[in-house]
């Protein structure tokens, strides 16, 4: 009786009990078909072993530290229990409340009204578009401040302000991903890496180090992408919405 595929897996990994292993070896010595089947399994396993591992990007270590450092001071919480992840997977209402809070901290105009359950759907999306547009405005301002700085920290945006932008950006990026808006998510992903790097810059970083970071942001055209996306979002936010059978621009 031939060895089954599952028995060959156990044999391959040395997981067979002694008597079964002896029987398997004896059978393989006499059966070309089972030997061929084992050889195929071995080729598949070799291919798996030889496949290149996924490599994180070149900023990975810095990004890890930038995210880790504040968490080291917040004992007792698990990484996937920290607020931004819980909210990202939580109710849309919680996201709107957070966005309104962040908006209220940095703008002089009142935060947009929180929508009720009856007005979710297109109106809910419009609120998010407006909030995201506000976030991009604030992020652009922080980036411009940083990129145009010429004398070290005096012209750089405050660290706490940038950390708040990182937290808000993460919420929006995860919402965009959940909504299948890949283009927005990709730009927000680029933004987040840069914001994290700025937030993680050591207070002892030299002017030279900061200038290298500034050139990297500038040449990437990130500011251009932010402006284009903000303009597109403003256009989308202005499109009429069908509400109770009537068009409204809200």
């Amino acid at each position, binding site marked *: 009786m031939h060895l089954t595929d599952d028995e060959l897996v156990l044999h391959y990994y040395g997981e067979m009990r002694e008597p079964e292993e002896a029987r398997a070896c004896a059978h393989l010595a006499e059966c070309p078909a089972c030997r061929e089947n084992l050889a195929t399994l071995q080729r598949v396993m070799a291919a798996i072993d030889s*496949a290149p591992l*996924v490599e994180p990007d070149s900023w990975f270590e810095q990004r890890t530290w930038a995210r880790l*450092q504040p968490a080291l001071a917040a004992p007792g919480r*698990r*990484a996937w229990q920290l607020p931004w992840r819980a909210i990202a997977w939580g109710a849309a209402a919680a996201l709107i409340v957070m966005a309104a809070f962040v908006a209220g901290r940095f703008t002089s105009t009142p935060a947009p009204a929180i929508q009720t359950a009856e007005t979710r759907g297109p109106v809910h999306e419009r609120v998010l578009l407006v909030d995201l547009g506000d976030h991009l405005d604030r992020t652009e301002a922080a980036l411009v401040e940083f990129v145009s700085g010429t004398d070290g920290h005096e012209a750089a945006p405050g660290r706490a302000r940038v950390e708040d932008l990182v937290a808000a950006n993460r919420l929006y990026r995860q919402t965009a991903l959940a909504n299948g808006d890949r283009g927005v998510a990709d730009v927000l992903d680029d933004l987040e890496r840069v914001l994290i790097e700025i937030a993680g810059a050591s207070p002892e970083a030299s002017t030279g180090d900061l200038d290298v970071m500034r050139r990297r942001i500038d040449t990437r055209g990130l500011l251009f992408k932010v402006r284009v996306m903000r303009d597109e979002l403003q256009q989308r936010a202005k499109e009429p919405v069908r509400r109770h059978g009537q068009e409204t621009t809200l």
Partner: protein
Amino acid sequence: MPEHDAAVVARARGGDGDAFRQLVERHSRSVYKVAFRITGNQADAEDVVQETFLKAYRQLDRFEERASFGTWLHRIAWNCAVDLLRARPKREQAEESDTLEQLGTTHATVTGQAAPTPERLMASVQVGDRVKAAMARLSPLERAAFVMRHFEGRSIDEISRALEIRENAAKHSIFRAVRKMRLALEPYV
């Protein structure tokens, strides 16, 4: 000459924040690879990296300097990744084997009734991409069990205890994983 891990750990224990940052920068990449293999996605892997270093930071006094810091970290990472999978709803862990049919091939096809032509093989995606795609199709349980068996060299008994499932369930998760990997890769090896 770079400072040995044990010396950096000793400084970190003494409250040197820069020392712990050095450890993070040295080891986060390898921890990520362990985490990605088990969780199968970037976001979860990054969360596992965070959790691993948080735990390591809090348990630094338990690290024995004669051991390898990297190995110690990997053990923590492995446990964190498994904890993350355990925290998932059960329905995510117990994916049905109908995924085998969803792969679009049958064993008959694989054994040669509709063998790919050399031109098709040459035009096909690199084997590495195939491996990645096949791993992505495993259920979380299948992937965790397979990674632990194949890459970590853990016994089925150890896997069943780590994943808190019966030994038979661990065994069959590995069988299903290997079956799926074979279906996806046999035409290309």
